[in-house]
C-alpha cells in the first residue's frame, strides 16, 4: 500500500513493463548520463532518419529509441517514458520535451525522485549532441 502511494500507477507500470528496453545496433546517437555516485545511470540510444513531409521538405525524425538504466523504480520509469515520448517525433519536437513533461506523463514523481526525470532529459540532450557531432558537416544546416 505504501509503495502504491509512493509511486503513481503509471510509474509502477513503466517500472514493471519498461517500454523500448535494450540497445540499438549502429545508433545515430547515444547518451550516457549519471554515475553510481549520484545513484542512477541511463543509456539512451536513438535511430534518426530523414523523412519527407507532405510539403516536400525533409525532416529529421526519431525513428527508434531504446534505453538501459541502472537505478531506482523512478529512474527506470522515467527513461521508459522518455523513449515513449520521443519516438516518432521530429528533432525539433523532441527537444521541446522537458523533464516536467516526463514527470507529468508518469502521473507525477515524488519530490525526492524528480531528479530522475531530469536525468532522462539530460540523456536525450546528450544523445542528440552525440548524433550532431557524428553527422557529416555538410548535413548541418
Amino acid at each position, binding site marked *: 500500500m505504501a*509503495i502504491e502511494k509512493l*509511486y503513481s500507477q503509471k510509474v*509502477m507500470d513503466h*517500472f*514493471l513493463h*519498461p517500454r523500448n*528496453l535494450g*540497445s540499438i545496433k549502429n545508433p545515430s546517437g547515444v547518451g*550516457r548520463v549519471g*554515475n*553510481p*555516485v549520484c*545513484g*542512477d*545511470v*541511463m*543509456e539512451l540510444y536513438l535511430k534518426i532518419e530523414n523523412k519527407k513531409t507532405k510539403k516536400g521538405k525533409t525532416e529529421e525524425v526519431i525513428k527508434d529509441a531504446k534505453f*538501459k*538504466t*541502472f*537505478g*531506482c*523504480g523512478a*529512474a*527506470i520509469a522515467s527513461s521508459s517514458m522518455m523513449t515513449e515520448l520521443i519516438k516518432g517525433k521530429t528533432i525539433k519536437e523532441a527537444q521541446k520535451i522537458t523533464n516536467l513533461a516526463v514527470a507529468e506523463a508518469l502521473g507525477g514523481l515524488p519530490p*525526492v525522485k524528480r531528479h530522475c526525470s531530469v536525468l532522462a532529459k539530460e540523456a536525450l540532450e546528450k544523445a542528440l549532441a552525440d548524433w550532431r557531432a557524428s553527422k557529416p558537416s555538410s548535413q548541418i544546416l
Partner: protein
Amino acid sequence: MRVYLDYAATTPVKKEVLEAMKPFFSEDFGNPSSIHTWGQSARRAVDEARAQIAQFLNCRSEEIIFTGSGSEADNLAITGVIAQISKSKFLISKQIPNSKSQNQKPHIITSAFEHHAVLKTCEDLEKRGLATVTYIRPNNEGIVEPEKIKKAIRPNTVLVSIMYVNNEIGTIQPIREIGKMIESENRKRLKENRNQYRKQKIENATSNFKQPFSQIYLHTDAVQAAESLPMDVDYLHVDMLTIAGHKIGAPKGIGLLYVRRGTPLAPMIHGGEQESGRRAGTENVPSIVGLAEAIRQIQKAKTKRQNDNLKLANLRDYFIKKIQEEIPEVYLNGSKINRAPHIVNLYFKNIEGEAIVLAMDLEGVACSTGSACTSQSLEPSHVIMAIFNDHLRAAGSVRFSLSKLTTKKELDFAIFKIRKVVQRLREISPYGKRG
C-alpha cells in the same frame, strides 16, 4: 503467499506482550507519580518491569532509564555524558578559556557505520563545538577492531560508542574486548592522575597543573542484539547500553538506556522527577510493562533460546548459500561468522537496491535497502560506504532480516522471487553483459 523479511526494521508485538499490556490502558490507568491507590498500582507495575529488565541486564533497577525510543536512548547517552562532563571540574577548557584547541574539548570515539541516532548526535556535538569526534572505519568484514579504537584514544577521550550488532549488515562487534581494553586504559589513566596529583602537591604549582579528563565511558547500541546475544552489562564491560522495544516484540515508542552507577549523565528532557530526574515525562506504563514482558520471553528457558538462535542461524546460512548458488554475482556484506542470526545483507551486482525492494514488494516479499530509517533519503548506505567505499556496492545492497517466526518455506519462496527480480532488473541495467 506474503513473506516479511524485514524484522530488523520492526517486529510484530508478541501475543504475551499485548496481553500483559492490556490492563494498563483503561483499567490500571493511574499515573505512577500519584500517591493514591491508582497511582501506586501503576508505580508497582513500572517497578516490577524495571526489576525484570535489571535481572536481564544484570544491573540495578535504578540504572535503567526508560525512553521513548532507541534513538532517544542513544541521544541521551552521548549528549548526556558530554553535557555532564563539560560541567565538571575535569574539563581542561574551563581552565584555558577561549581556547579552541582540539585537545580542550571532550573527545568521542565511534564507528563510521553506527546507526544515525549515534552518528548524527556526534556530528551535532561537533557542529556546536562541544566535542571532537573520531569515526573509526570498520574492516572488510564489517568489524570495528578494538586495536583501532585503542590507537584513537587521546588524553581527552571521554566516550566510546560502538554498536553491538550493525543494524544493516548484522555483524557482531567485539564489545566485550572493547570494554576490557577501555577498563585497562582507565586504570592507566587513574594511575597517571594520581602521579600527577602527587607531583603537583610536591611542586605546589597548582596554577600550571592541567586537570586530566575523566575516565572513558563505553556506550553500546544493543538494539539489534537484545534478542540473541549476551546482554549482561558486567560481562560486556559497558557503562551504557541501548535497547528498543519494537525490535524484540514490544511496541514502538519504548526504549531504554542502561546507565552504570557513577556515569555522569545530564538529562535532555527537563520537567518532572521521573526516572530519577534523568528523563522527565509521565512513564509510558503499558509500553514499559510490554517491554519487560518481551524481555521475560527472551529470558525464558535459556537453553531454548540457544537452540532457537542456532536454528535461526542455520536458516540464515541456508538462505545465503542458496541465493549465491542460484544467482550469479551476489556477495555477502560483512563477516559470515561474526553475524547476528537474523540479519543478511547481500550485494546484487549491477542493479539498484530500491528497485529490488520495490519489485520484491510487488512479488509479496518485504526487504529493505539499508535501514528503514534511511530509506527516505537518497544517500547511499553509509554502512556499506564505510566498509567498501564503493558506490555501486552501496547502491546495490539489500537487507533481508529474519525472526524466529521465519520458516524454510518462506525463505524458499523469497529466493524464488529474488531470482526472478534480479534477472529482470539486470536485463534493464546498462552494466554487465551487453545484449
